[in-house]
């Protein structure tokens, strides 16, 4: 058995190469128990990392341990204890939902009768109880996401890998999916690694986060501590030469980035105040038309990590 404090998964100088391209480059990380987010832009190496953790990809360098087991030496034992929800649409054709989930349970080692019972339970749990006798191929995108979660949960894994679980879902469906994932992590006590490029999803579900880019982990830690501000954050709107204002901010080593609409997000160090903003605007002939203190978000953490890189 694993101790509570032991990482659920750890990578030691792991490198995975596709041809000449390193998808993961010398990654060392220890994922704590609980809900962990894996953030990064498309092509950052998140899915490759999950597949390496599953033992589906053999690392060219380094070693991986999941749930205390060496993935290279005992891949089947590792996979028996993991539930994987892939990013792309995936189903076994010609099956009803309940048959599909039960089949997945049997493939994971459940006896046939238990697999069928668990399939019914899990389908009710993910909200597909009424549609469980329908052919999976007739499901909507949202339902397909749910059934992918169901098949990942059916054998009661110790660890769940969720690859972009809210892809293609409408806002309501997305909220419901996130609530389900939160419930799995908090009430069912299943550790999970959620890979996503949607920061609010990760923020609403996870306790800690790993930020990836170009096949490396560029920042990690508990979300709460990463978000604790190293200064003041302001939401700013300027009138006038906006690019010049942004440049002026950056020249003073203030983090400044564009957000939705006309707004800029500016992070000032603790010793600086809003006066610096007005001064900089005046220097470039711009006017500050909106200034509002803001709370740090995961997006700020992500932007900072990418900026530092």
């Amino acid at each position, binding site marked *: *058995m694993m101790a509570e404090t032991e990482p659920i998964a750890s990578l030691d100088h792991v490198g995975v190469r*596709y*041809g*000449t*391209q390193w998808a993961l480059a010398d990654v060392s990380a220890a994922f704590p128990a609980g809900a962990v987010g894996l953030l990064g832009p498309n092509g950052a190496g998140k899915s490759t990392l999950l*597949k390496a953790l*599953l033992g*589906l*990809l053999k690392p060219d360098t380094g070693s991986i341990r999941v749930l205390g087991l060496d993935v290279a030496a005992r891949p*089947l*034992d590792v*996979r*028996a*204890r*993991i539930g*994987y929800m*892939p990013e*792309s*649409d*995936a*189903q*076994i*054709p*010609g099956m009803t939902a309940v048959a599909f989930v039960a*089949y*997945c349970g*049997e*493939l*994971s*080692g*459940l*006896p046939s009768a*238990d697999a069928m019972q*668990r399939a019914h*339970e*899990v389908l*009710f*749990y993910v*909200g597909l*109880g009424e549609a469980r006798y329908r052919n999976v*191929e007739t499901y909507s995108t949202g339902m397909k996401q749910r059934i992918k979660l169901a*098949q990942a949960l059916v*054998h*009661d894994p110790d660890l769940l890998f969720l690859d972009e679980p809210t892809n293609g879902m409408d806002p309501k469906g997305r909220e419901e999916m996130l609530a389900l994932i939160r419930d799995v992590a908090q009430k*069912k006590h299943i550790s999970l690694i959620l890979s996503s490029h949607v920061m609010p999803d990760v923020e609403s579900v996870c306790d800690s986060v790993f930020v990836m880019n170009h096949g490396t982990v560029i920042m990690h830690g508990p979300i709460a501590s990463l978000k604790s501000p190293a200064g003041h954050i302001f939401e700013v709107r300027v009138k006038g030469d906006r690019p010049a204002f942004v440049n002026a901010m950056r020249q003073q080593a203030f983090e400044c980035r564009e957000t939705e609409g006309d707004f800029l997000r500016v992070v000032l160090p603790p010793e600086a105040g809003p006066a610096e903003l007005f001064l900089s605007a005046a220097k470039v002939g711009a006017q500050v038309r909106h200034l509002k203190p803001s709370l740090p978000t995961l997006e700020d953490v992500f932007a900072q990590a990418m900026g530092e890189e």
Partner: protein
Amino acid sequence: MPIYRDRYRRRSSTDSGDPGRVEGGLDVRGRAWAVIAAYGLRALTRRKPFIYLMIVAWIPAIVRGVQIYASANFPQAAFLAITPQTFRDFLNQQELFVFFLTVYAGSGLIADDIRSNALQLYLSRPLTRAQYVAGKFVVLATALAFVTWVPAMLLLIVEVLFAGSLSFVRNNLYLVPAISVFSMIQTALAAFLMLALSSLSKSRWFVAVLYAGLGFFTQAVFAATRIATDGTSFSWIAVFGNLVQIGDVIFRLPPRYTTPPAVSAAVLALLIGASIAVLGRRIRAIEVVT
């Protein structure tokens, strides 16, 4: 959202003392291929065209059964008495049904999984690629055995029953292994070839055409060389011609082509080997584009 059980109640490894169980986990070893095979066969037998095909494929066996009955019970029909060659001819006839059954039951076995991205669902579970292929192979091989080995062995039993003695079997003891070995080779060739082709495409229709094309094209090339050379030394070109040649040798009959049987055997081994190699390359949870 009702959930009736919080967690699946696992037996601990100490309950069973079974080394195939993960500590505190599930029974994972060596069973997955059987799950795939059982599901595949259940799905196959639920399809009406498969049942109809099976019924048609058994008609020659029923006719042979009547032949055995008549020759054993009516002196006027003694000329219908079966010989070892009857079994060779029977399996030769069944080649047609083997072809249709392979195309119908086998073309989608892997292609459908590739089309619906199911490979990653399979391979993210405690089963190896070899177990996945084994499961699919058993589906097709079982279906094929039901039109080759099973009816041929039944005919042998029917002969014993109607003749009321074991003399035919005793005088032709080699028939049981011959039927078994030939059916095994026939099944292995068809199943591995079809699985390999099925792993190359997302479309079962394309796979079916590819398999049919492979058979007909190589046969046509052989036919052309036969006309050109006025001989059969190029029979090794025809995929299923090699099977015919090997079948003759197994049933202790003079080979019908001049190609050395060893060459035919080598070609069959090469085809099966190549099919396994293709499956090894194609059955992956991840499609790597470099």
